[in-house]
Structure formats: C-alpha cells, structure tokens
C-alpha cells in the first residue's frame, strides 16, 4: 500500500504513520503496511530528463533554469511527468494499491487532462509516448479510479459536480464513489418549535432546574444544529440528484485537528460505507 502526496505538506505522513502507533497497530515487526512518498513536479521533471538522454548535463539544466523554461514552453509537462512517475510506480508491481492525494478542485481537472492535452499539442517524441501511456492508465477502469471528495456545502458540491463531468468528458476516467466528508452524523436535537419540547422545557424552568437564560441557550443551539444539518441534507440530496454516483458519508469528528487515531476511525467508516454488509 503506497500513498502519494503531491503538494509537499508533511501532514499526510504524520496522519497515516504518526503517533508512534504504526508499529503497535499495524503489524509489529513487519515493514509498515503503508508507505508515503512525495512527488514534486521539479524533481519528477529532473528525473525524467535524466532518463531521456540528458544524463550528465541534467544538473546544469537545473542550475541554468532551463527546466523552468521547458516547463513554461510546454505547460502541462509538469503534470505529465508527475503522472508518468505514478504510472511507473504502478507498473513496478511493488504495491497492491496506490492512493494519490490529488490537487484541489480547479487544478484537478488540468492535472488529469494534461495527458490528452499533450497528445493534441505534441506530434512525436518521448513526451507524447509518456502521455499515451498515462492516458491508457487513466482510461483503464481495472487499473485506475478517481474518487471525488467533497463536504456538504454549496460551493464544494458545485465543484465536485463540475469536476466529475469534466473528468468524464475530457479524460474518460472511471469515477468511484463520492466521499462526503465532515457530515454531521450525530443525533438530531429535538425541534425547538415542537410544543411538547417547549412544554418539557417550561416544566423544567424552576429554581433547581432549567433557568430561563438556559432555555434561550438550549433553543438557540438546537436551532443552529438543525439548520446546519438541514443545509447538509439538502446539499447531499442535490449531489445525489446531479451525480449518479454512490456516496460514502464520513462523520464530522468533534476535533479541530485530525490525528492518526481519527484516521483509523474514518478508515473503518469508509470501509463500512463502501461495503454495507
């Protein structure tokens, strides 16, 4: 199992192997079951040039900034070499599954369409061959799937829908289930406008029970939570109506920063959600 990180943030490695728990929980003396590797575009381009006949002069290419110029001369070459590197990892057969933490919404489309773009722009040579291989990988549903991840709010849902259609039209990649993160899967608080609820509160108002100030707090908190939950529900319904894909909902955890323990919990939810047996 390999996780590929593209934006160079260190968080991912901490989350999947952090807290020193990797050894305890993930198979004692064995090698860690999850490896994390970061791929950066400049490094991938450098490596690519070395492997394509630049050999000894590759260092001077970086030093003189030729690589920047190449990247600008042929936009998308950065993305192609990164995807090419991923394809190479896949071909190596060293991993059962490779998970790539892809770029955010806007860039995801250009990233994944870079291969088809290159085929249109370049008539021959190694970059074209690379683009052909990458496109073959992306279009083979047995080898590759794209999993869209969103949260239940208007703009992220819009972006997920747009990205799904663009990827289907322009790349022809197989889309897996949509993951909806941060969903309030907790208990719905009672309806503050319900007569019985109000009556129960009124019955509780007294010197030793619910103060009148508390009544306001209780009702405001319930309204807030119910309103957020109703907004989430309608965004999830809209997503389902516009994207005919399975959805997996992951809970909003009551934390302000995830740790490896939370990742374990989310992972088991993910497995349950994907295979409801």
């Amino acid at each position, binding site marked *: 199992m390999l996780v590929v990180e593209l934006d160079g943030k260190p968080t991912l490695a901490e989350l999947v192997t952090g807290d020193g728990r990797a050894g305890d929980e993930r198979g004692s003396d064995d090698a860690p079951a999850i490896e994390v590797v970061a791929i950066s575009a400049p490094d991938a381009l450098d490596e690519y040039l070395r492997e394509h006949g630049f050999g000894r002069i590759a260092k001077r290419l970086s030093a003189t900034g030729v690589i*920047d110029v190449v990247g*600008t001369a042929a936009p998308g070459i950065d993305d192609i070499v990164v995807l090419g590197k991923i394809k190479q990892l896949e071909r190596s057969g060293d991993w059962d599954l490779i998970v790539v933490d892809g770029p*955010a919404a806007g860039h995801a489309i250009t990233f994944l369409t870079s291969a088809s773009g290159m085929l249109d722009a370049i008539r021959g*040579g190694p970059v074209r061959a690379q683009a052909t291989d990458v496109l073959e990988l992306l279009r083979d549903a047995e080898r590759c799937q794209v999993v869209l991840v969103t949260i239940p709010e208007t703009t992220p849902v819009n972006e997920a829908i747009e990205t799904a259609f663009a990827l289907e039209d322009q790349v022809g990649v197989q889309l897996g289930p949509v993951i909806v993160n941060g969903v309030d899967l907790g208990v719905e*608080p009672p309806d503050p406008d319900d007569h019985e609820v109000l009556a129960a509160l009124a019955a509780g108002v007294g010197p030793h029970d619910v103060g009148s100030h508390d009544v306001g707090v209780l009702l405001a908190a319930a309204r807030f939570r119910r309103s957020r939950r109703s907004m989430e529900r309608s965004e999830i319904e809209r997503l389902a109506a516009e994207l005919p894909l399975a959805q997996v909902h992951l809970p909003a955890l*009551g934390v302000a*920063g995830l740790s490896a323990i939370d990742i374990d919990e989310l992972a088991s939810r993910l497995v349950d959600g994907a295979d409801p047996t």
Partner: protein
Amino acid sequence: MSAPLLGGALDDASVVVCCGSGGVGKTTTAAVLGLEAARAGRRAVVVTIDPARRLADALGLPGGLADTPTRVELPDVSGELWAMMLDTSAMFESVVRANAGSDEQADRIVENRFYQNIAGTLSGTQEYMASEALHQLHDDPRFDLVVVDTPPSRNALDFLEAPGVLARFLEHRAFRLLMLPARGGLRVLNTAAQPILRAIGKVVGSDVLADAVAFFQAFSGMEVGFRERAEDVMAVLHSPDTRFVLVASPRRDTVTEAVWFADQLVEQGLEVAAAVVNRAHPRFGTGDAAQAADEASRCAADGQAAVAALWANVAELRLVAEREHAELGPLVERLGDAPLLEVPLLDGDVHDLASLAEIGSHLTGPG
C-alpha cells in the same frame, strides 16, 4: 459604523492584503472588509481571485464579477463599495502593452504561444497580476481603500516577491542563452548551450522551442521597464499604509499555516495587522461542555428526555468550540498586540448582503 473595523487595525490603511491558505473563507473576508469600510464612509474596491458564483450573487451582481471595478449598490451607506475579479491574462496583456515600445512589439508578444503559456501557467503569475491590480487601483483616484484577496498559498513570499517574478524570469541565464544565439561575445556559452537546446527540442518539439526563442527576442528592451515597475509595486506592498490580514479557520493545519505566514511576513520586515478566524463554532451560553454534559445526564436521570437531548446538543457544540479555541493558542501568541477576530460558522450559506453584514458585525467592535 462607530465601531472600528478589526479593532482599528485598518485605520489609515490604503491597501489591505488578505492572506492565508485555501478554503478558509478568504474571499468572503475580503468582501466583508470592503463592505464594512464602505459603511464607515470609505471608497473601497475589492479585488477577488476566482470568486465563487454565490459571492457575486451575495453582492447583488447577478451578471457575476467583471474584470473592471463595478459599483455595488448599497442603500443607506455613506461610502462606496466596488468589486472586481482578477482576469490574469487580461491584466498581463495590459502590463505588456504599458511597457512595450510600440503596439507592434506588444502584438508580437501577445500573439506568441510561449507568452500565452507564461500568462497562463508560469508559477506566481496569479500573484504577480494580483500585485499589479493592487498597484493600479492604489493609484486610481476613485478609491481610497484597496482590499486584495490573494491566491491560496502556503508561502507569503509567493505574493511578496510576485512583482519581480517576470523580471527574474527574463534575467534567467537560460533565457539569455535563448535570446542571444547569434551574438559573438557569448560564443563559449553558446557552444555549451546549443546541444542543450537541441536536446530540449527533441523532448518538447522544435516548434515549441522556436516559440520560446521568438518570445525572448520580442521581449528584448522591455526588461528594465519591468524591473522598475516591479520595484514600484514592491514599494506599495512595503508601505506603512498597506496592512496584512491573516485569514484562517480554527483548525490545527490552517492555524499552523497562518503562524508560518506571519513568521515570513516578519522576516520581510512586515507585520500582521490582524487575524480573522472564520467558521468558528459559536459559543452557546457561558458554561463549558462538561457542565452541559452534567445537565444532560441529570435531566436524563429525571426522565426529561427532550431537555436532556437539548443539553447533550449544547455539550457537543461547546466541546467542538473549546477544541477549536485551544488550537488558536499559537496564533494568538504569534499575533502579540494585533487583534484576532472570530467569525462564527453561520447556520446557512452566505447568500446576500445581509449575511455579509452579519459576518461584518463580528469584524467590528473592540478586537
């Protein structure tokens, strides 16, 4: 109107730069700061980068944001609010035209495919054009306050050094090698360069390389103008009238990024005027989560199921708010005397001027 915006951190400002990582509500914060400044009598213009459709709707601009400033109708407001969306390639073209020796030179550059790639993909171009827009609007007599929403970035230097990005690109040795293939004085470099160029041509295609050479030649003579312009823009960024506002959300990762951003600003001799933390869970009541949980179990024991459920809800919301608040510690410490303002998570979406004004009410008042 009487309450100071961001605890007075923006008093006498002529430029406000909103910075922070992606997804923290930076664009919305920029719009709200512009709106509040207008309510305080300023003539404010907000420049946004790739705004969500609903922001234009919220501002009452159903046609979407244009690439030139458009006045937002604000009834009963003494100041003015204008908004525009940055069109990177249109802005780049106007910069090229302003610096070109002739229309013919400008046309030659703008039509070149290598130029079009630079305008679209050179890293830092968006930041560069945002800084250009900032400079142009700063000089525009219609406005006395420019609020800029920066592209999401982990690196403060991406924006602070953006004005020089093209000047540096033009000064690349590689660039000169391409530009001077025929001149005698650099023969030694040339002999070294030619095989490299041929090899690159083999990888990316010789027509691509020819475009690059044509671009570099078309640009010749404009480097000095670009460098001087970059220095002007830098001067605005470093002016005491320019204020940097950090935008974050109350989560460990964005707080870490915000602190790092602040460190980088300080290294550049700049300071953070204020921080805005969006999407903080609101606080319900004065007690803590544990108290609410106690109430919940007490009510449950008394058989008051509905009231117990209401307390349990308060306990859950308070717990999240407490955890979020704990994450803000490093940022509060880093800010020192600069104010930190929390904007609570709204119970719905930002969809009209009233919801923007509601956010604004959390950004005014004592910091």
